[in-house]
């Protein structure tokens, strides 16, 4: 069984497309208020970083800030299969940056134990597709530890980070977006950023949280998404979304790598006079229900789009909340544009909720 791909460089036929997403993002940022868009991308001394470098910077700062912080997982010591942990073992030593045996239930259970003893383990699950062997440890243990003990024990220092989502050729076991499975589990927090700046600030916030957090990293952005990033220490609070562009006609709610797809669709719609408000949730549990509600009350229409399959995806929760919160404002039924309800195939061109599908949804809902 080919379980692990030795990925030294993420090659994707769509890489040029997503490189243009980065530049498109820079252009788009001028359309919104400075305080909102430029959080940490235009800090003095900002340094060009891709997504994986922003992660590496966050881990470096976390390790230097607190001696009780450790980083470990499969193949982490040499730099990790996506290079997110490059040079950290050399800098901080093999007791704080180390390999674990090849066992997800083992490494997550081990991390829970470390966190219950007051340390801050940042555990890596090499691909989100392989987090399921640790599902019992996450759902039955990490998420419930504080509650079941009346607050006397907890593993709040736990952070699990994991590459996630499609990469062009990952097939069934190197492409999954699994956040929906965990969204139904009280006691954990879930984050999935879409930019290097957000990734760094949100990861450092997860490390500071005193609740267990799962941090998903859309792996096709690791090298393709580049922007100026504040090299210093900063955090971005969980539970706060981000309005990437303001609009009047329809709200699009999304997160992760799908943000870039939605942005392209919004630009295409703009050429036809349709004004799209685009929200990047960033934090999925807790999520920014208030921001979404305010936006949909203004536009009267909503499309929720994510890479995970449609049935029981996070979009279902968002849409039912919107229906409850914005019932009198809705001018069209809320729509969801997601992956199909099949396992993730190798050929994903028609499987993914691509730009064309999102664009068609925009046309449909604004013409309802």
């Amino acid at each position, binding site marked *: 069984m080919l379980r692990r791909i030795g990925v030294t460089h993420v090659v994707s036929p769509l890489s040029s497309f997503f490189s243009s997403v980065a530049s498109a993002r820079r252009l788009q940022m001028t359309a919104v208020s400075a305080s909102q868009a430029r959080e940490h991308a235009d800090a003095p001394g900002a340094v060009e970083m891709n997504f994986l470098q922003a992660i590496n910077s966050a881990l470096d700062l976390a390790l230097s800030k607190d001696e009780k912080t450790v980083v470990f997982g499969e193949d982490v010591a040499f730099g990790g299969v996506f290079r997110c942990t490059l040079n950290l073992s050399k800098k901080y030593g093999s007791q704080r940056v180390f390999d*674990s045996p090849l*066992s997800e239930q083992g490494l997550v*259970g081990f991390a829970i134990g470390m966190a219950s003893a007051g340390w801050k383990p940042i555990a890596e699950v090499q691909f989100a597709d392989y987090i399921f062997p640790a599902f019992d440890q996450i759902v039955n243990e990490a998420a419930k530890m504080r509650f079941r003990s009346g607050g006397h024990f907890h593993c709040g220092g736990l952070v699990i980070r994991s590459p996630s989502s499609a990469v062009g050729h990952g097939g069934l076991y190197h492409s999954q977006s699994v956040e929906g499975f965990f969204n139904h589990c009280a006691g954990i927090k879930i984050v999935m950023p879409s930019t290097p700046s957000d990734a760094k600030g949100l990861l450092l916030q997860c490390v500071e949280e005193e609740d267990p957090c799962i941090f998903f990293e859309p792996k096709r952005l690791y090298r393709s998404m580049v922007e100026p990033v504040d090299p210093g220490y900063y955090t971005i609070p969980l539970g706060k979304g981000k309005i990437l562009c303001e609009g009047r006609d329809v709200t699009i709610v999304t997160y992760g790598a799908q943000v870039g797809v939605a942005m392209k669709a919004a630009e295409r719609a703009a050429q036809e006079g349709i004004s799209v408000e685009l929200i990047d949730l960033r934090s999925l549990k807790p999520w920014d229900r208030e921001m979404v509600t305010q936006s949909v009350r203004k536009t009267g229409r909503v499309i929720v789009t994510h890479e995970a399959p449609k049935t029981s995806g996070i979009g279902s929760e968002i849409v039912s909340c919107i229906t409850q919160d914005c019932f009198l404002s809705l001018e069209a039924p809320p729509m969801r544009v997601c992956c199909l309800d099949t396992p993730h195939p190798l050929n994903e061109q028609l499987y993914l909720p691509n730009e064309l599908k999102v664009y068609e949804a925009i046309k449909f809902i604004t013409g309802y």
Partner: protein
Amino acid sequence: MFRKSSHAVMHSGGLFRTPRPLCRALQEALMKAQSVWNLDFGGTPTVDELTFHQRKYPSTPMFHVLDLDGRVVNPKQEPEVPKETLIKMMEAMLRQQSIDLILMEAQRQGRISFYMTSMGEEASAVGTAAALDMRDELFLQYREAAALTYRGYTVKDMVAQCMGTIENELKGRQMPIHYGSRALNVHMISSPVATQIPHAAGAGYVCRLENERETDPNKKRICAAFVGEGSASQGDFHAGVNMAATMKSNTLFLIRNNGYAISTPSSSQYAGDGVFARGIGYGIPCARVDGNDILAVFQTVRKARELIRTTNQPVLVEALLYRSSHHSSSDDSTWYRSRDEVEVFSNLFLPVARFEKYLERKLLWTPEQSRSLSQKVRQETLAELHRQEKLPKWPVSSMHDDVYKEMTPEMHQAQKELEEHYERNKKEYNM
């Protein structure tokens, strides 16, 4: 250390032959390469006759100190234990026995919803707790309440947890017998079996790192995970023990092998030499002990703790004993084992009586003290049951507490709605 303990089968001569000269180059090449596999062949990396290795029978004998009449068999192996510790051990076992009698009956009467006793297994829990330091962190399964009792968990604490009253600092959220105490360094018990094993490996890694920085030897501590032989079949057992071994965690794995996982006998649980043999496969020191002999358990665990701290590796101890009681208040064990078997083995081993005879011979204890303490604890437990039955449960206002450190906006809203619902319908909720 255990390299040559395996029994060769299908081999008529000596276990190893001297390699022929023409293979010297091969031998030398393999000796250079052995570190790639984290192996050390001790100079003989190959054999020229095929051998399949099996390690099953004869089973590894268990260490013991006392015979069934509480006499020391080998005076050289009698551990030096302070008198107050011996008495404290005896008292803890008797207290737990008495508490178990009352609370199991309380469950039969419908006063608590569920119960599990430690009948017949008190020695393994108390012997282990007594050999550890109070600051060592315990990760329990569920049949080790006696270890908590030894550490000072009270009848009041136990009744409060079993009843879920307002006095249960754990807020009454878990089924009865799921105890825990931050003050006593005993981690909260949870029902999913074996999940605590990798936790103890990770916390034991923390202990190792902190012990290496600690200059005062008396402040060094370890973690101990208590595991039933059925739980050892879970993937978490493999993951936890293996990772403790590679990470050199300061962790003790104490296996309570009582012969049954509910109705499943050990013949359906494993085919190797118990759980003990698996630890050898992970490359860590292992011992097997008579789990009904509290002095043997004490001595083994004390030596294990010393070994853990001095060699920076986890240790596995398998205690063999017998589950005298039903698995739980939801189980009737006569469905799968005969009453005769239970009576014979329960009366044969009697860990508490065995130790009592030992103490009597040393003039440290009398049967009257046993009767007196048992009666006192039974009365204390009954009194607590009566008292706490009148206490309220935790209030509705606490229902969303502790899911996270802080409540999220949606949880605040849900809590508010719940309280409003409760106020509107208070009479229909018998609280």
